[in-house]
């Protein structure tokens, strides 16, 4: 109650955050693979109102992805096995980035490789490219045979990838962690040792849905990655655990549908958040989350959004 009376509340609240050297307008990003190359959403909102757009995972060469079916709905969630279909980093820089630059939004490139060299090669190509604010290293995709999750569940492999990317770029690096591990703290330390500037979590959780009439997976692959509100409580817990270990900022991801969900992650320790599956349900979600966080801050007399980060009382 008392806090509502603070002077600051007469003026505007400050939503800006600094994530490992990236100065963002607000803590709301869109999660890789759920927002295309960003441009597709320009009809639904003014993209420059977002903290940043994280684009679909980019690899060195274009990737075709997995055969259909690639998605299946599950209780309060969905499985996907897209298999990192993408146009390749060069086509992205050539064909998509100029359009995004025109929309004046911070762009983070989510990158992926089948081996350490590919990761650093993709990072090198992006280094110094105008309109890229940072890279997010995906070491946690459960839907590809090589690379991806193999790096995300082995601390020393993870560190190796991160240090290679560190050498290849001067851009701020976010490392995106896999939830498919026993102890997230170990992974946090490993990627910090590798030189990451921030961590983001969680990527999808490896999961499975079976067609009982055909006795096959409902996807073309045996397993897929679970996302959506179903995983939110697990993601909040992992963000809280990561926050308590991490020296770098933590970006919370997993099942965020509303501003209240986003605030939950921030109280647990997230300095910023990403909206994923919710973009499919309502393409305006990310903007709604920005506005909702602002309203919450005014109501609670919070002047700087960073005050929320890790404010959980235990």
């Amino acid at each position, binding site marked *: 109650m008392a806090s509502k009376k603070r002077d600051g509340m007469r003026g505007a609240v400050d939503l800006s955050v600094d994530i490992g050297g990236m100065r963002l307008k607000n803590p709301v990003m869109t999660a890789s*693979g*759920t*927002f*295309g190359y960003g441009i*597709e*959403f320009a009809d639904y909102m003014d993209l420059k109102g977002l903290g940043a757009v994280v684009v*679909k995972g980019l690899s060195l060469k274009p990737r*075709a*992805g997995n*055969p*259909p*079916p*690639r*998605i*299946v*709905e599950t*209780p*309060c*969630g*969905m499985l*996907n096995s*897209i298999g990192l*279909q993408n146009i390749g980093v060069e086509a992205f820089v050539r064909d998509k980035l100029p359009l995004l630059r025109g929309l004046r939004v911070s762009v983070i490139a989510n990158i992926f490789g089948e081996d350490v060299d590919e990761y650093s090669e993709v990072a090198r190509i992006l280094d110094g490219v105008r309109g890229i604010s940072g890279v997010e290293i995906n070491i946690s995709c459960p839907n590809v045979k090589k690379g991806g999750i193999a790096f995300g569940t082995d601390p020393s492999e993870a560190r190796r990838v991160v240090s290679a990317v560190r050498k290849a770029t001067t851009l701020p690096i976010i490392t995106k962690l896999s939830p498919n591990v026993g102890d997230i703290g170990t992974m946090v330390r490993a990627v910090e040792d590798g030189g990451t500037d921030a961590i983001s979590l969680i990527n999808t959780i490896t999961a499975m849905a079976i067609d009982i009439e055909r006795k096959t997976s409902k996807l*073309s692959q045996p397993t897929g990655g679970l996302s*959506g*509100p179903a995983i939110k409580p697990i993601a909040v817990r992992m963000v809280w655990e990561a926050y308590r270990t991490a020296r770098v900022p933590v970006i919370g991801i997993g099942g965020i*549908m509303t501003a209240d969900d986003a605030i939950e992650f921030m109280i647990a320790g997230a300095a910023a958040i990403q909206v994923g*599956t919710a*973009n*499919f*349900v*309502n*393409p305006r979600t990310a903007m709604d989350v920005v506005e909702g966080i602002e309203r919450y801050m005014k109501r609670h007399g919070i002047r700087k959004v960073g005050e929320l980060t890790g404010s959980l009382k235990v």
Partner: protein
Amino acid sequence: MARIVHNYPVAPGCYRMGLSPGVDRVEPGQFVMIRIPGGLDPLLRRPFSVYNVLRGRGGGIEIVYKVVGRGTGMMASLGVGDEVDVLGPLGRGFPMPGKKERVVMVAGGVGVASLHLLAKRIGYGTLLFGGRNRRDARLAGDFRDLMEVKIVTEDGSMGRKGFVTEFVEEEIGEEGTVVYACGPSAMLEKVSCIAMDRGVRCYVSLEGMMACGMGVCLGCAVKADGAYRMVCSDGPVFRCDEIDWQGMDG
């Protein structure tokens, strides 16, 4: 949010729902993504072809849907005045026939839904409708004022007996015909084969599991011309010879 202005049964397990206000400029063959507000389960929107465009105050659209699972089951239980969330129109629709081209539409069951607006725009031609029985054939009712309607039923209770695909061949002449088809994937594949054999243009409206409906989740992939293309944004209408029918999930 759109308000339900009607929602009544039209054939066994099939309903016609009117929604107001309408959506902008719909092309025949385009679809909308519908979500029932409330709980988080089912989570994803469900895609439905725009069956009709309503004029008058605020405008509106109609869809014709079949109850096959939870989402459509919940839709059937909604009443006039209830609200649903509508996204769209989405996707690429059917191209219009060329001048002097004969028009043949082939529909399996509720597949008529994606062809109705096209039939209204074109206003001539033949619809070959396949259903299980005479009651299913009610789905073709609205086409009678627009074109010649030929019914095929599996039980022979109306029209000719058999599967609609058995009668496609005799319907399409050589060149100078354009075929528009919508229905189960196996039916579309057969229709496409016939059309390709005969060298006639043929457009099919495909389905696929969709999350976003706007080309960003890459979930609704279909193999076409050797690459994965998206049913929602590259389709749902494709030229039948683009599709790699082998790579389709049955």
